[in-house]
């Protein structure tokens, strides 16, 4: 069970409260977690990563276990505490005002 914390705007869009818990088949990577997330919540497609290129949107960040994983290749395995469901993967809207 993978725990994912979405930013407030995306929780509203997906109509969820609190953490999202996902079953991920195979290796747990950023890509496989986002695939599972978008399969459960199709309205999130295009909001975290580009539809076509699958690249992370510029003002979205991925944090876990106190580390910034935003620049890791998407097929990099996530840290063990995330894979074990001990720590959540945080999807964060970058600090930017307006």
């Amino acid at each position: 069970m993978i725990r994912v914390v979405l930013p407030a705007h995306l929780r509203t869009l997906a109509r969820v409260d609190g953490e999202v818990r996902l079953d991920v088949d195979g290796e747990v990577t950023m890509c496989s977690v986002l695939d599972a997330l978008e399969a459960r919540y199709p309205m999130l497609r295009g909001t975290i990563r580009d539809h076509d290129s699958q690249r992370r949107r510029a003002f979205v960040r991925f944090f876990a276990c106190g580390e910034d994983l935003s620049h890791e290749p998407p097929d990099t395995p996530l840290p063990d505490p995330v894979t074990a469901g001990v720590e959540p993967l945080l999807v964060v809207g970058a600090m930017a005002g307006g």
Partner: protein
Amino acid sequence: MSGVRLLVGTRKGAFVLTSDGTRERWEVAGPHFAGWELYHLKGSPVDLNRIYASQSNGWFGQLIQRSDDGGTTWEPVGNEFAYDGVPGTHQWYDGTPHPWEFARVWHLEPSLTDPDTVYAGVEDAALFRSVDGGREWTELSGLRGHGSGPSWQPGAGGMCLHTILLDPKDETRMYVAISAAGAFRSDDTGATWRPINRGLRSGGIPDEDAEVGHCVHRIAMHPARPEVLFMQKHWDVMRSDDAGESWHEVSGDLPSDFGFPIEVHPHEPDTIYVVPIKSDSEHFPPDGRLRVYRSRTGGNEWEALTDGLPQRDCYVNVLRDASSVDSLDPCGVYVGTTGGQIYASADAGDTWTAVVRDLPPVLSVEAQTLP
């Protein structure tokens, strides 16, 4: 009893304002999509409860929302706007080629006959169509591909397709306008396009009479006379009597011919409205006085409408999609400002009141006349 619904897009959400036909008291619902930019909302003319909304922000990109109950509840629909084929390049601000990149939807134009068909004007400039209620979008790429696309340049607000007009007498004919490329017309339901900018003169480009490169801000038509078009250009208010084949200036005695929106009276095809702005570098009303100008002669002769509008210390702007008219008699006229006010007139512009004063900056206003 008849009524009016105003669909208001702002920098921080959408609001739905409703009134009965007197248009004296308004209820304000919202914000919907709080914290997001709502560039535009518009309802289907054949199903008033079917409304499309363009929702975006810098973090999470573009969403399209659809309501089937007049804006009470919403459903996210398709948000994939993929350019057809290899998108190629347009000119960047420095004159270098720049790849076409989707940024946002500026304008949504529902079909005049089918509530499931809707057009989207986007930045970087292109036209998309959905025929399934907004779930899937297909580019009408004949517009970008007609030949001049690689020479288009962005205006200060981005290279946006912001105006879509559908001809109610000829379902094959449509118009779009792009900043800063100009106006274009299709006579085959959007398959092929050509520029229609003859007569436009723009001092800000090397060839003032160029075929493309003009910063058209808005075009409007009266449905009973669709071959007559009115245009608010960056500078100049223009008119065409031949479906855009040629244009002539009708700025006349306006205090400034710079501005963004232009509207046509719903029952008087020669009555038009503009909101003069001081200049391209000072986006506020001349003399700190917000004045809507009305011409009853199809241009050239204008009267200032001021009763109820702020006539001192007013430095707001009215953006290109932030005005609208209803079709009651007398008609209602509405403008939304970057200061968050919605001003309404229930007597065709003679007198005005502020319906609401403290919304986020207003990006768009669309009036729906309810039975």
